[in-house]
């Protein structure tokens, strides 16, 4: 951890201006639950932090009209316990409630959570921070240094979307649910405002695993917008992990079902814990459309969701587990009432 400059602007425009003024090595910080951790590990070495938490009005939760709109600074814990979200979009509430701990959810923001970095052990260890005492090559941390996870202890690594340079899992829960619901983000940067589907925020690792997000460095997410859908009530976020709480997913599934009695009109399915970015399972959605939802069709959808999955040395079980997780998530969601 090293010394850094610090600014706390009171508007989004001022934050973008402060970023430009700070020059090389500037980073935005909100709840800090990821950034401080990575600074302590010496992975993030910002020269200047622009603290956005004093910006007014950026934490609003709006549920009226035809969309849900979450200010980027809304705490995860607030969105997770919002009455409309709990009743009409359990997939969103569950993806937040099953992430981190209550203390972290109180600090972390729904905007910042989109940019949480991977939990790959080889990425987190060995940047030179005094807390680890290990060094491993990592193309994400140090481009061109190699990937220690390939050929190493890869039980937690991705089976979808990995490349010869990187197999690190995209760690989020909330982004998985947002991707399933076709959410988009509102963005502010020096060049003005724009919006972007959440699914398009994330890059595949390819040969450039150090480039994770499509956001320009000076841009900030100001809000997350979820178009309302009647599939929301029949939705679920099912997360399987190595303990019952406070752990990242081995496999997770965000599902939302639009059903006509027991027949699926449209299914939305996204996977977490198994892929290098939030993974929309379009093949599984197609497999279910027009089908009656039964344990068999749910299992078939699970298999379709993992189409193209490639196991490493120790993580082959995640393919099987994710298929079962998708199937269970569908059956859980289907039991939920739309009344």
């Amino acid at each position, binding site marked *: *951890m*090293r*010394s850094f400059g610090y600014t706390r602007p009171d508007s989004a425009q001022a934050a973008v201006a402060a970023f430009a003024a700070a020059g090389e090595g500037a980073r935005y910080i909100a709840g800090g639950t990821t950034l401080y951790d990575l600074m302590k590990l*010496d992975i993030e070495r910002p020269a200047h932090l622009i603290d956005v938490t004093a910006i007014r009005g950026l934490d609003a939760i709006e549920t009226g009209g035809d969309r849900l709109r979450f200010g980027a600074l809304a705490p995860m814990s607030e969105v997770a316990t919002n009455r409309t979200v709990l009743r009409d979009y359990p997939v969103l509430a569950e993806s937040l409630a099953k992430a981190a701990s209550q203390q972290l959810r109180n600090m972390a923001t729904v905007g910042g959570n989109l940019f949480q970095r991977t*939990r790959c*052990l*080889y990425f*987190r*260890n*060995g940047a*030179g*921070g*005094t*807390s*680890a*005492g*290990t*060094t*491993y090559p990592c193309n994400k941390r140090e481009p061109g240094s190699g990937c*220690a996870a390939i*050929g*190493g*202890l890869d039980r937690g690594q991705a089976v979808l979307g990995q490349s010869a340079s990187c197999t690190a899992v995209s760690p989020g829960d909330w982004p998985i649910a947002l991707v399933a619901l076709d959410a988009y983000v509102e963005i502010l940067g020096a060049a003005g405002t724009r919006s972007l589907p959440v699914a398009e925020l994330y890059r595949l690792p390819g040969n450039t695993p150090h480039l994770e997000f499509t956001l320009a460095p000076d841009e900030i997410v100001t809000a997350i917008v979820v178009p309302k859908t009647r599939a929301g009530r029949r939705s679920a976020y099912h997360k*399987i992990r*190595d*303990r*019952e*709480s*406070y*752990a990242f997913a*081995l496999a997770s599934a965000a599902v939302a079902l639009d059903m006509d009695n027991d027949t699926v009109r449209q299914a939305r399915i996204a996977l977490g814990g198994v892929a290098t970015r939030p993974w929309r399972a379009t093949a599984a959605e197609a497999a279910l459309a027009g089908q009656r939802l039964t344990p068999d069709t749910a299992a078939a959808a699970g298999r379709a969701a993992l189409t193209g999955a490639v196991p490493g040395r120790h993580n082959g*079980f995640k393919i*099987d*587990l994710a298929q*079962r*997780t998708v*199937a*269970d998530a569908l059956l859980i969601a289907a039991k939920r009432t739309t009344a």
Partner: protein
Amino acid sequence: MTSAPFPDRPRVDAREKVLGQAQYAADVAVPGLLYAMLVPATIAKGSVRSVPVDAAMRVAGVVRVLTASDFPPPPAGGAGGPPPPPTITDQIAYRGQPVALVVAETLEAAIEGAEAIRPTYAAMAFVATIEGDGVEPQPVEPSTGGDADAAMARAVTRHEAEYVSPAQHHNPIEMLSTTAVWEGGVLTVYEGTQGSNMAKGALMRTLRLSADQVVVKSPQIGGGFGQKGGAQRQTAIVARAAMLLGRPVKLVVPRGQIFHNATFRPKNRHRIEIGADAEGRMIAVRYDADQQQSRQGQFPPAYHESPPMMYGIADYHGTAANLRIDTQAPGYMRAPTPHPSSFAFDSAVDEMAVKLGIDPLAFRLKHRATRDPIDDKPFSTHFLHECLTEGARRFGWDKRPLAAGATVRPDGTQVGWGVGCGAYPANVHPTIATLRIGADGTTRFAAAGHEMGQGIRSTIEQVLVRELAIDPAGLEIAIGDTSVAPQHVTAGSWGTASAVIAAERAAASAKAAMADLLAGRTPPAGNLHRQLATVRRPSIQVEVTTTGPGQGAKEVERLRQGGMAVSGPVYPQFTSFSYIAHFVEVHVEPRTRRIRVPRVVSVADCGRVISPRTAASQVRGGVVWAISACLREATEVDPRYGGWLNNDLADYVVAVNADIGEIDVAFVDQPDNMFNALGAKGLGEVAMTGCAAAVANAVYHATGKRLREMPFRIENLL
């Protein structure tokens, strides 16, 4: 003296702890304090070529960087501290070994300075796992009773299998830390340690100090579990910095460095063969164990400590070996060898019961041990059957279907019930205690002992309050401090038995002193303080020395010198162990195969229970540890690199509250008066033993699948 049951009393330090007021070593405020950070080696074996310090010294606030040349050469021999000697040396034996200490005016500067140091190394080839090439087993003395080969030849039913327990780290919430003050030629060290005497001895040897130059104070420990039992890696390094700089220095070791430098539970393997006769009685055991070991490590592979003491199997042959590789020294972690050996052995016993088609509880009850077959002695007390029958009653075992996989809920969840048993040696060390009772309402009891949350102060208070009419509000229990009484390592479940017999003797001595003072007069009204005031005596003080069975002047002298003075579990006339039986219910999910443990019943024989509240808490903690060890914890090594990969509490997965269900605890509470006057044996360690086997046996009963390697994870049942 009486050996009647003790009443429930609150834990003495509960209120301070809940309010966050309890003072731990790193909380001690010292004026003029400097802060330190270690620089870990980034090679797994070899030597340090250079430690460039310029960049660190340029960080504002950095005062000094200590490297190997700042330390006296390591003392000869391995006595005491964990090898390599606990200072900074240029020879690197494992990844993460300290190569420098940065001292600064602030913690931030110390960290920044440490990160600025990039040593250069001459790296050597290394072996990081016991599965690696070139690992040679190094056997230790076997444990033998009777003739296992001959008995095995008579057996009509045999079971043979291998069981594995992974490397694990203790991870107490209180980090390792040292605060050192060098003033007037005396070094005072504040440290969360279970062995203030061990820390003192290591400081004397490594820094060439005399006994009267070193004081170590361990006010309160935020979890020890054995990791804080020996000389810690950082203690002498920090003390040396304080001596060179003439200012107090504090180091709180980061979690990742604790994984790399502290002791840990080594990976261990158990090949067990059990033979049963035509009546379905176990008559022979052949059992080979081995464990991960460092190049110079001394943690003994004592895997035959407990299994022969369980079921009265006279013909037992056990071997054990070290597998030396390039790692830091492994060490004692809660129920050090009896946890993995009871997992292995009581799983094997269960497998034999299945093979014979006998209910696993009835099978265990067919075997009652009366003698220690290895040492050929009677047991002082042995209430394992009482643990089993009471546990079965509380659990409702009689409703258990015999067949595995027989209980399936409508949603497909498989339900299994398992039983597992464990044993742990009853050990004891001598104690020299002073007790002073004042007319002003104060009482001070000073003795050997360390409070790590197990409740040793609560047990001492329990005995003093029962034996003497003193005011508990004015009671100070001075322990864990080398300046108040000769200290001994508090570990191995010997703390309470050693301390409470001293408290009981001191109380008797104080009563006698009061009687002398009254010289036949009727005692005045009121408690002891009031009585002293009435007879115009400011205080009475007594000193007592207590010893365990068979102990004498030699052990007392060893205690005075700060060495190990523990006896047991084999005493001149008998062998003494604590016992426990655990009954566990598991639920296994139909598709995603998560294992849940909604219900545990544990019944322990620890002799007389001194403090019912902290004792029950110890057992619940032991059960939580066992569930976590069996289903969650493993420290991972990438053999290409060495070191520990999942070296933080996010990635080293320990059980959380949501993983733990109901835990019902009960005690046999029968005193062992052959062992000592109060009849107390030990509890903290035995609490964990046998419980992992109970989980494994329940998983088998639920699913029909036998898991023999911990931790059991989702992929093992998919």
